[in-house]
């Protein structure tokens, strides 16, 4: 028996939708296997991981709160990936955005007015966008590989955050703990529904919906898709690849920066040496699982957020390490990419002995 790929005449729309669902199913199977190998009941593990968080209001809210930054970052990354710009440094853009956004409440704590929060959010978006523009400009001017430069800047951003919270931005009344002062109410994203969720969630959903319309219905959306699929055709239409590189990086960085500011302002309420459990990297999975489509990304963000909450749930209930969450996230991306093969190809099983004509079709 041998596998053979046969190219489909056209993209299979059905498979484009089915592939993430098959991938989630395969990931659940793999997760069950990991539970079984580590000596736990796989069914209980799957229930605790994937289902139980959905049954209680607080954990549902916590999942949605975790999904919020993932969706916001994922939307920006989708625009990058659609236009063939490989920004993998969203984690750094998230951190720098949080730093820019936090500058106001940390350096000017007395400045408390209705303008505080909006200004912070704007600063955050600008900071993330500026950080993201570095690899974009280097790509345009020097032909530098944006994958490597955007990733290197993640490490630089994390070290900058570490330096600030341990040095100049450390809370003067904080007994030398490496953390900034707490933000005032004027600098805090208000809660909604009295749980873990803040106003960040509705803001994120609105942005995702706007982006969905822009991508599907406007010239800009057309430009992004054409330049990704066929840059040559796009250049005949007068689109500039370099301008689009700047645009997509700035947009992705801006959204990641906004997410970073909303996370420190709405969730943590101060800066800490680590402010993200890898949102910027998980958002890459979110973008692919969501078919690089904002609506799909909202659903995918929820699925990936569930893996964080599920990881904590199996740790407290079954004593399984919460590291299993990142394993499951990684497996999920693998399965999505593998299943995406079915969008463009059919798989045919060929037996070695049978003549070529009698090969069975699947």
């Amino acid at each position, binding site marked *: 028996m041998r596998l053979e790929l046969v190219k489909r005449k056209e993209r299979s729309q059905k498979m484009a939708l089915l592939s993430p669902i098959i991938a989630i199913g395969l990931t659940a199977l793999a997760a069950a296997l990991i539970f079984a190998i580590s000596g736990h009941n796989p069914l209980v593990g799957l229930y605790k991981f994937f289902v139980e968080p959905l049954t209680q209001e607080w954990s549902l809210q916590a999942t949605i709160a975790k999904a919020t930054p993932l969706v916001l970052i994922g939307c920006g990354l989708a625009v990058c990936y659609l236009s063939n710009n490989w920004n993998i440094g969203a984690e750094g853009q998230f951190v720098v955005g949080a730093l820019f956004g936090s500058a106001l409440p940390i350096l000017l704590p007395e400045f408390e007015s209705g303008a505080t929060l909006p200004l912070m959010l704007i600063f955050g978006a600008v900071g993330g966008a500026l950080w993201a523009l570095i690899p974009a400009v280097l790509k345009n001017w020097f032909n530098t590989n944006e994958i490597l430069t955007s990733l*290197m800047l993640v490490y630089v951003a994390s070290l900058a955050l570490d330096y600030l919270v341990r040095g100049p931005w450390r809370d003067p009344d904080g007994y030398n703990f490496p953390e900034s002062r707490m933000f005032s109410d004027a600098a805090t994203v208000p809660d909604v529904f009295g749980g873990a969720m803040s106003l960040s969630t509705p803001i994120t959903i609105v942005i995702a919906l706007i982006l969905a319309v822009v991508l599907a219905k406007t010239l800009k959306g057309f430009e992004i898709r054409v330049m990704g699929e066929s840059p040559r055709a796009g250049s005949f239409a007068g689109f500039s690849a370099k301008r689009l590189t700047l645009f997509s990086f700035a947009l992705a960085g801006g959204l990641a920066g906004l997410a970073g500011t909303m996370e420190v302002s709405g969730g943590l309420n101060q800066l800490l040496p680590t402010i993200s459990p890898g949102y910027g990297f998980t958002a890459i999975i979110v973008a692919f699982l969501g078919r690089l489509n904002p609506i799909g990304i909202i659903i995918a963000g929820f699925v990936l957020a569930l893996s964080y909450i599920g990881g904590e749930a199996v740790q407290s209930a079954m004593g399984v*390490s919460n590291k299993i969450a990142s394993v499951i996230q990684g497996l999920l*991306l693998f399965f999505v990419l593998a299943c995406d*093969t079915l969008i463009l190809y059919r798989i045919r099983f060929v037996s070695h002995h049978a003549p070529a004509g009698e090969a069975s079709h699947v």
Partner: protein
Amino acid sequence: MFEAVLLTVITAATPLLIAAVGELVVERSGVLNLGVEGMMIMGAVVGFAVANQTGSGTLGVVAAIAAGMAMSALFGFLVLFLVANQVATGLALTILGIGFSGLIGEAFIGVPGLRIPSLYIPGLSDIPFIGPVFFQQDAIVYLGFALVAGVAYTLFRTRLGLVLRAVGDNHASAHALGYSVIKVRFLAVLFGGACAGLAGAYMSLAYTPQWVENMTAGRGWIALALVVFSSWLPLRVVAGAYLFGAVSVLNLHAQAHEMVNIPSQLLSSLPYLATILVLVLISANRRLTLVNTPACLGKPFVPDR
């Protein structure tokens, strides 16, 4: 002082050298595997775990190589047989490797490690300065240099190297000549995985003999940058690896000599900033990069039937 610095530079450069020369072979065959970091961290954790359980550094190294190869086989299957997007699959490999290594390594945090012994050559190792620097390293340091020499020779002086480069430069022609593009590429990917696994083992069994989560700290990515830096020529990888080894131990020595007015975080970020700078300088020179860049790098190949 100078001798001590040189010795740490050698140990810091070795994992970069080994991982980069492996990836160079992969890229020469036309495949871009961005999962070096993931394979390396798996090598580090598996090497540490096996050495810890068996008490044998050699078994640890062998297991690390196997772990790197297993990870790369997964990548190869997706990219070569299922024609998945290479960039995204490489990223997936890194995310998966970091996750899996964290899960496996949790039991080994804080456990004292095992250091691969240094070689001792009677006579030569006792020569002042020259002895410690050249003749008292562990076996993997020498293996690293042997790998570079072997890869350089194979790529440019043997039939196998010619086939590999042909597959990387023009897969359609190589296929038409009857070479199996997929097979050559898969073997190259496995070789890259073995090297990344070995580099990881060096991190956890020689450079800092312990397991710390995320201990490779972006070295896999720096190795990828080194391949660009070397413009796909093995001997230049050595220069790059030692340059980066030097930059990355700067932090250590600056702190030891009380250059306290520079924040340690700034020093720690130097290797990453240096990577960006070097990429800019190399990439700006179009002629240099285009001459040796494998023409089919990152392009998928599906054989016609």
